[in-house]
């Protein structure tokens, strides 16, 4: 049996796979999101948080995916750095804008949830601050790649930055336990903390975000492969 990453490491196989997988993941994401939102808006108001509990269905998946995408960025960067694999570098480059978007959503929806619950749009709490640092790592990654003309050097520098940023992930996750935080602990990790009426739509939305990321990631990697092919063809045409 061929392991999936090795199978996908071949650009031709990847393009053939992603051609059908990207739209399939997109359709799955839309279906799951419709089901999750339907159940989420059918759930009763929370006895403490009232209707604001519905922000959970978009905030929690964005926060989880913000971290998951950074793991993907880190692993792809490591593979690009160690094996100098072009597709791994394309995967890292393609993940960064998606991760930045999801982290931005986690911060903004969290702020819109925090204002009615905590009475503040923002507090310099360990969880919020570490997620802001995560967002800044994404922005720095994108800025670094854009600021160096030599693509190989840009890829190497950005990969090192991405690996440094991995240190922040356990800080984000454990911040609510290591410090006295206003942000609540993880309800999803604690068995029975979330009743099924909220847990089911939340899990559906988590899967919807995951499938949506999968689809967009594949599309962006395809775009990167085409860009590199176009630039290689332009160099060949200029030499001829």
């Amino acid at each position, binding site marked *: 049996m061929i392991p999936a990453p090795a199978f996908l490491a071949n650009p031709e196989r990847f393009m053939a796979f992603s051609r059908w997988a990207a739209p399939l993941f997109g359709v799955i994401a839309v279906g799951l999101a419709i089901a999750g939102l339907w159940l989420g808006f059918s759930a009763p108001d929370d006895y403490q948080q*009232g*209707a*604001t509990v519905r*922000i959970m269905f978009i905030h929690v998946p964005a926060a989880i995916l913000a971290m998951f995408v950074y793991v993907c960025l880190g692993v792809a960067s490591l593979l690009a750095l160690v094996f100098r694999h072009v597709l791994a570098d394309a995967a890292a480059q393609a993940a960064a804008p998606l991760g930045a978007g999801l982290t931005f959503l986690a911060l903004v929806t969290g702020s819109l949830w925090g204002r*009615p619950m905590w009475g503040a749009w923002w507090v310099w709490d360990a969880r919020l601050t570490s997620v802001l640092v995560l967002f800044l790592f994404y922005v720095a990654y994108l800025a670094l790649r854009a600021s160096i003309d030599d693509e190989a050097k840009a890829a190497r520098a950005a990969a090192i930055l991405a690996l440094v940023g991995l240190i922040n992930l356990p800080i984000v996750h454990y911040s609510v336990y290591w410090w006295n935080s206003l942000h609540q602990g993880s309800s999803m990790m604690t068995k029975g903390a979330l009743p099924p009426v909220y847990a089911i739509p939340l899990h559906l939305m988590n899967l919807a975000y995951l499938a949506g990321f999968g689809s967009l990631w594949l599309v962006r990697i395809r775009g990167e492969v085409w860009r590199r092919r176009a630039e290689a063809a332009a160099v060949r045409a200029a030499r001829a």
Partner: protein
Amino acid sequence: MPDLNLGKYAEYIWPAYGITALVFGLLVVGALRHARHWRRRAEELRGK
């Protein structure tokens, strides 16, 4: 049945959903435009 009457918290919930829809829209359009642009460019150059 979904209940869209969010009471006094509607001013926080709808913007949260609106911004989420907007950002996802931008990510989808951005990804598709990027891929389409470079695919056309690669095909043009390959045809030369």
